């Protein structure tokens, strides 16, 4: 699965720490999501989508192998 969290975060000009604080997770978690090391739960994906003002399917995109 590919994600656009980093791009959307940069568009809104917020840091990893600010995004982490907004959705009550650690900065390491945001880093792991952005680098594709971790796929978040539905709850966290929805929180990210609310915070970044994008639909979940715009943030997370399925790839052929998924």
């Amino acid at each position, binding site marked *: 699965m590919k994600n656009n969290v980093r791009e959307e975060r940069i568009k809104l000009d917020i840091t990893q720490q600010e995004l982490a604080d907004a959705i009550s*997770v*650690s*900065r*390491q*978690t945001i880093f792991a999501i952005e680098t594709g090391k971790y796929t978040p739960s539905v709850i966290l994906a929805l929180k990210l989508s609310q915070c970044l003002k994008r639909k979940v399917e715009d943030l997370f995109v399925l790839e052929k192998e998924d």
Partner: protein
Amino acid sequence: MIQKVLLPHRYKKAGVWFAPIGFITWCAAQQGAFSGWIETGSWQMVTILATSFFGFLAGLYFLIFAKEKNEDEYIAKLRLQSFQTAAFGQLAFFILSFVYIALSVNEPAGDAQLELFLILAILLFWVFYIAYFNITMYRIRKMAHEK
């Protein structure tokens, strides 16, 4: 991961002190470091051995089950991964040890050696868990900081 069983983050610091101090004291007592002024087999020696060993176990418990500063679902996933790795590590240790014992030309030194092997096998699980979890956390923190 059951979050309710986790201890507050402050226990981690206690674990960092308890585990090594308990382990070193226990090893020293086993090697007879206190035999100069405490008789071997006396109740004082038994108390030192029991206190140090249970101190070590308590330290391990604190290290394993203390929450991270920000315990979230990614940390919970890392904990599960660490349990899985620890289980594989322990299994590998069991298999290799049994192969070693089976192929060993020397006769095993009785129940004491078997007891030591079993205690080691149980403790190794937790040592693998602590090592894997903390190394992974350190690497992620370092990479996140560099980015």
